[in-house]
């Protein structure tokens, strides 16, 4: 097998080839860099840190295991002891952690090899990967458009063929929305199922490590290897994680909620068309549509941008120029050191959110904003609980639009925040959700839907994603464990 072909394989097929000795782990890891990256990376700019020696060292220790030799891109906010971890921020320029995040350790133990660190919006605050100190990542399907964010680098790398799998983080949609914009699957697990140890904190009650992949089966495999309690994460969910081994089991008899009031206005016709297509595919595969009205997304946006910024203002207090990261020179006193280091090191969107969160938590406004948002969070969680008493899964848009143009929302923070209107709810409620591609829009841009499930509903979500992968064709579901995947072509 030549390197040129290896990068097209699923993670499962690639690991099997390595284990069988048909190719070496180093060949498996290098294939994506020699083929697609040589063609795409310079323009797409999905990767913030790559290191040939670290890749070779990783491949040298990884010929066994369920992920033997499988290259994986890891978002730049997950700690890795052999690559810098900078969260796309000047404030952490050059920082190299002395330890691996738990999810990174687990993927290495399974034979996976880190292919590079994925570009991202600074501290995962953004929906377009334009807020990175390394410059933007572009959508491989249209270089004038954004890949979504904040895990735009990992999503674009999976889309153009560098790797079959990537790890991102999802605080308000940062795995699902770039997954949708880049035409790959993006899974945000149930809160606490994937350890947050070694994930640089943005909003701790909402942050969750997520998985991007080209195939439902690959995503299921990586989830099964990474999920489970971690004593190093106090919010890790106790007990065994849900079994996702039945990802190819079909959706016969499943009921999916159809809250059409959410897309009656403000949603692109192409996105609505994608929802209709997905619903029809699920119905062909034996699932049943259950229409009902759901709480409009504006409440989730309002709740999220108060809670997430409040938590961020607290979490990012640690970047003060003392223990690590950027330090302003010649500060006369400690107060000046903090203020100058932070002002020079943190970017415009991060500063905006820290200010907003500081305001929401400050004396006199705490009850009006922060406490009200915490109560709204309970209300939102109850809405989802009520929905899942009537259906097994919810179908809704992943984003209200197709991938937008670079710069389009850069100067309008609220417009940027509204591109998360459909994804924020799952983080607030703590439930699992994924975005899955459907057929591309008329102009060839990726198009996707979002599926949401109850706590520990990852198995159901992956079964539905698989049904969409084969477009609801049950005969195909029976006979094939692979589907053809369309790679972007140069435009």
């Amino acid at each position, binding site marked *: 097998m030549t390197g040129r072909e290896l990068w097209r394989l699923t993670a499962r097929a690639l690991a099997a080839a390595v284990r069988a000795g048909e190719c070496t782990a180093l060949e498996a890891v290098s294939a994506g860099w020699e083929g697609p990256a040589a063609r795409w990376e310079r323009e797409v700019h999905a990767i913030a840190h790559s290191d040939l020696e670290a890749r070779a060292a990783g491949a040298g220790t990884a010929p066994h295991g369920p992920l033997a030799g499988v290259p994986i891109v890891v978002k730049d906010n997950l700690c890795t002891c052999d690559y810098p971890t900078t969260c796309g921020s000047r404030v952490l320029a050059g920082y190299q952690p002395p330890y691996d995040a738990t999810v990174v350790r687990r993927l290495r133990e399974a034979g996976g090899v880190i292919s590079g660190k994925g570009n991202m919006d600074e501290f995962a605050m953004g929906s377009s990967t334009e807020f990175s100190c390394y410059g933007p990542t572009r959508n491989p399907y249209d270089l004038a458009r954004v890949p979504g964010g904040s895990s735009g680098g990992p999503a674009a790398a999976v889309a153009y063929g560098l790797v079959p799998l990537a790890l991102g983080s999802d605080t308000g949609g940062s795995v699902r929305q770039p997954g949708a914009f880049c035409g790959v699957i993006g899974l945000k697990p149930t809160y606490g199922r994937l350890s947050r140890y070694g994930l640089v904190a943005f909003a701790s009650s909402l942050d969750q490590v997520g998985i991007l992949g080209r195939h439902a089966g690959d995503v299921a495999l990586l989830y099964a290897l990474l999920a489970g309690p971690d004593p190093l994460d106090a919010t890790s969910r106790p007990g065994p994680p849900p079994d996702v081994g039945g990802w190819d089991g079909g959706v016969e008899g499943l009921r999916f909620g159809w809250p059409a009031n959410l897309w009656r206005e403000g949603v692109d016709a192409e996105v609505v068309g994608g929802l209709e297509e997905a619903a029809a595919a699920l119905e062909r595969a034996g699932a049943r549509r259950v229409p009902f009205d759901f709480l409009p997304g504006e409440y989730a946006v309002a709740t999220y941008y108060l809670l997430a910024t409040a938590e961020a203002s607290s979490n990012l207090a640690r970047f003060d120029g003392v223990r690590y990261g950027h330090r302003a020179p010649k500060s006369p006193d*400690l107060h000046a050191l903090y203020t100058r280091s932070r002002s020079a090191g943190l970017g415009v969107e991060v500063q905006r959110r820290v200010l907003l969160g500081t305001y929401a938590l400050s004396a006199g406004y705490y009850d009006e904003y922060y406490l009200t948002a915490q109560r*709204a969070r309970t209300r939102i969680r109850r809405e989802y609980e009520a929905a899942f008493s009537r259906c097994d899964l919810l179908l809704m848009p992943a984003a209200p639009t197709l991938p937008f143009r670079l710069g389009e929302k850069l100067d309008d923070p609220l417009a940027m925040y509204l591109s998360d209107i459909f994804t924020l709810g799952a983080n607030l409620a703590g439930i699992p959700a994924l975005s899955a591609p459907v057929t591309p829009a008329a102009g060839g841009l990726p198009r996707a839907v979002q599926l949401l499930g109850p706590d520990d509903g990852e198995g159901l979500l992956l079964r539905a994603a698989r049904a969409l992968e084969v477009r609801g064709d049950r005969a195909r579901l029976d006979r094939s464990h692979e589907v053809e995947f369309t790679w972007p072509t140069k435009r």
Partner: protein
Amino acid sequence: MAIQRDEVRRIAGLARLEIREEDLDRVAAELSSVLEYAEALKRLDLEGCEPLSFAPPATALRADEPDGRRLTARQALGMAPEAEGGFFVVPPVLEGQDP
């Protein structure tokens, strides 16, 4: 609710951030527009809704457990912008005192 320039200065001070004079109006307008949007929550019926910090069951913290990790002083100081003799170096904590 509209935020004024003075309010931006006050918040920035609390957050240990420096906002340039020429940026105060822009920042004030941006924060105001998000807070105005957040007024939507006033229309939501929150009767009987207690504040939620974490989605359950993470609200129930687990018991403390021994932690086998070891970070050496060398590792801890290894990424510091300035360290000396096993300590992090900082400028004077109280203004007007010689270092």
